[in-house]
């Protein structure tokens, strides 16, 4: 609950409200989109509490401030509601919760809490926060006539404490309470059934027949949740009877119709098997959010324990070095690890002997440094955030940090370079530079090493074809440096390969598979394709090809001359000319195009 209430600030609502007010005062529309203005939210709140008033009046300003301050408490209530679902605590547990909750917050307050849905400040304020704020301070042994009078942080801490006590009391009274051990046991039972190796040999024809039957039987139930249903998992294609309604946390667009359902009638949410659900939950737990893609590494051939150990060490070392960059434990937080920047990576990787690269060299090659403007803007933001956090009081900063900075500029530089050990300063630095681990490592044995990553390996406007080429490129780099088979798959894709197929997996995009001519790039072709995709990335940038499909366009050019002409034309419009480096790149492309014929 403490984490949840930190996820929302106390200033966002009032900031937007003030902005809308200013816009209106200057004769503009308060909101540009279809969304509700904050003034309308407050009006709706007034309606719910039987009040009325004028827009942007002092009274409304006051309520905007109140609602803004109440945001973390709203989230705490939301979390409590979700944690006390009858699915977890049963009917008796629900009754107990209602009793305990009503005892503290007053009769009918539990029903009011249940009437709220997603975060809606008007309803949440009226049905949860107001009730809490009106309680006398005496009830919780605090010196305040009403809870509302307490300082916001103190008030939120008190609410979290009260709700935690209720939850603990209710959970203690449950006989079959949900526990981590029970969940772990359930997960293990599911995963053991899902083992690929060792497993019984199956007759493929028989399996196909069974799957066809299950597909037929499951069709009427896809998009519905009933007790008699038979399902087939949209992720792993296994038949099952008891599963879970998929949320967008588990699968992309779970509510959209698929051919797995019948062509007519209502379609709700697709159901996934519990094995897939647990697998995705574990990935989310590791990353702190839903993984976007998964880098899967297998040994390229049968290997002994020694070589296996070496592969694990390589993966661990790669992760450790990447982690340092991701969390900014360096002097330069502008250095970022971003696997989608294939042109930047290619310019550093192509001249290297990948077989001899150490993990720190590899991580250096996978990182880029933000541009000058971004660096300056980040530094300004950091300075402002530090000044805000310490109320512009440099003296108290020096006292708390044990430093003697004569100016905010020097203090900011020290924080930037990671020379200040104060946890608050470090947290501000992390927030400004978004220094969070975006990749994790799951590595128990060398048979399958997973790197779930929280962002997709694609640039903003990339087509699926371009993105598939970038994934193949990164897979090739990792495959060659780690001497392994590497596949980069979408989080909801099934991993149905076992290693040994080649160095890098080619994503199932028909244009890319046509171009490469295989599902896996074998070791003999790996360096050729690495050069081809890498150099094409660099030239797509140089020729300012379309952001959507430029990389692919370069790779299917009839000759290097076509790309050269394009670069020249673009440069001419910028009054710059071709240089020898471009020709060197084009020579590599020419070779690659010739070899690919």
């Amino acid at each position, binding site marked *: 609950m403490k984490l949840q209430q930190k996820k929302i600030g106390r200033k966002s609502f009032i900031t937007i409200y003030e902005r809308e007010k200013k816009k209106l005062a200057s004769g503009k529309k308060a909101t540009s989109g279809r969304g509700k203005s904050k003034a309308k939210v407050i009006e709706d709140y007034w309606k719910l509490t039987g009040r009325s008033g004028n827009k942007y009046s002092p009274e409304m300003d006051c309520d905007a401030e109140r609602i803004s301050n109440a945001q973390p408490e709203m989230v705490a209530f939301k979390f409590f509601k979700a944690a006390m679902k009858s699915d977890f605590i049963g009917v008796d547990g629900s009754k107990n919760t209602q009793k305990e909750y009503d005892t503290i917050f007053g009769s009918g307050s539990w029903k009011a809490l249940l009437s709220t849905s997603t975060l809606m400040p008007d309803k949440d304020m009226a049905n949860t926060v107001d009730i809490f704020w009106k309680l006398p301070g005496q009830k919780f042994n605090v010196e305040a006539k009403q809870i509302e009078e307490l300082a916001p942080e103190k008030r939120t801490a008190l609410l979290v404490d009260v709700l935690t006590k209720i939850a603990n009391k209710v959970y203690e009274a449950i006989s079959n309470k949900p526990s981590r051990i029970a969940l772990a046991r359930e997960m293990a039972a599911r995963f053991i059934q899902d083992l690929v190796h060792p497993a019984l040999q199956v007759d493929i024809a028989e399996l196909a027949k069974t799957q066809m039957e299950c597909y037929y039987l499951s069709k009427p139930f896809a998009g519905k949740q009933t007790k008699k249903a038979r399902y087939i998992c949209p992720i792993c294609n296994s038949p099952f009877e008891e599963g879970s309604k998929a949320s967008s946390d588990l699968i992309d667009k779970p509510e959209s119709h698929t051919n797995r359902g019948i062509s007519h009638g209502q379609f709700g949410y697709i159901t996934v098997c519990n094995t897939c659900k647990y697998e995705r939950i574990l990935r989310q737990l590791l990353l702190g959010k839903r993984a976007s893609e998964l880098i899967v590494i297998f040994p390229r051939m049968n290997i002994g324990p020694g070589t296996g150990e070496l592969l694990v060490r390589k993966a661990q070392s790669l992760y450790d070095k990447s982690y340092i960059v991701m969390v900014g434990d360096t002097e330069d937080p502008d250095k970022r690890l971003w696997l989608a920047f294939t042109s930047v990576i290619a310019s550093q990787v192509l001249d290297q002997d990948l077989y001899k690269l150490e993990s720190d060299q590899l991580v250096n090659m996978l990182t880029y440094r933000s541009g000058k403007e971004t660096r300056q803007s980040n530094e300004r933001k950091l300075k402002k955030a530090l000044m805000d956090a310490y109320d512009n009081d440099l003296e108290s900063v020096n006292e708390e940090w044990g430093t003697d900075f004569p100016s905010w500029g020097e203090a900011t530089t020290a924080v930037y370079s990671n020379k200040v050990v104060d946890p608050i300063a470090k947290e501000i630095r992390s927030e400004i530079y978004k220094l969070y681990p975006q990749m994790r490592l799951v590595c128990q044995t060398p048979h399958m090493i997973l790197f779930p990553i929280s962002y997709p390996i694609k640039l903003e406007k990339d087509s699926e074809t371009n993105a598939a080429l970038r994934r193949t490129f990164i897979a090739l780099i990792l495959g060659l440096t780690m001497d392994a088979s590497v596949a980069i798959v979408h989080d909801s894709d099934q991993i149905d390969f076992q290693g040994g197929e080649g160095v890098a997996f080619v994503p199932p995009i028909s244009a890319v598979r046509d171009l490469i001519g295989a599902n896996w790039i074998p070791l003999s072709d790996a360096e050729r394709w690495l050069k081809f995709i890498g150099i094409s990335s660099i030239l797509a940038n140089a020729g300012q090809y379309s952001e959507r499909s430029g990389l692919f366009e370069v790779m299917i050019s009839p*000759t290097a*001359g*076509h790309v050269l*002409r394009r670069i020249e034309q673009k440069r001419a419009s910028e009054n710059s000319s*071709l240089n*020898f480096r471009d*020709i060197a790149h*084009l020579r590599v492309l020419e070779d690659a195009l010739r070899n690919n*014929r």
Partner: protein
Amino acid sequence: MRNPIFVRVDRFDLDGVASEIDGIRDCFDRYLDSYPIKSSRSKYSLMGPIGKVLQEARTGKWDAESLTGYALNIHLSNPKAKGYISQEARDALRGGINQLLELLKRAPATAQDKILDRIDYGLYFTRRAKGLEWIENVRLDFIIFLKNKYVTPEKLATAWDEKSSSYTNNFAKVPYPSKKLFSNSNSQKKIDIAEFAKQAELRGYELIEEEEI
């Protein structure tokens, strides 16, 4: 209703004639080695009469002899050619045109544009790359000349009255000694470029403007 008639047309394999395309390109490239290009940097100028040859070959109205004559006429009307074309260049031109028309005769109409496109852009790349590589080689020669004279980048910067940071990293940023650079330079820089140009002349080549490549 009569039975439908199925006609199976084999798809022309462009990659199957890649070696012939390369051969034609080589001939034209050898010819262009002796063609004096005009002062602009355009594709039109760089390709000389070959651009016109490819354009006319598309029409299918020419035989090899007449198209070669047409190209020669363009060549000789270039004032820089001074009414001269070497025997080797003439042979290369004729050989290229012969092979080109032969290939086009065999190829289906739908593939002809693609073949010409490959020759056109492929040749353009070869010529452009040759030019830039020549410039780079001269620049590297100039760097060696300066290294011998000044030894360190700092001394060079002092002599040329420029920032020492301009020539760090082992003289890597020294530019090509073009006429433009010569006319915009201070006295010592001018002297060095002139001295280098004289040496180059003695070694059998002259400095050409970057735009002429």
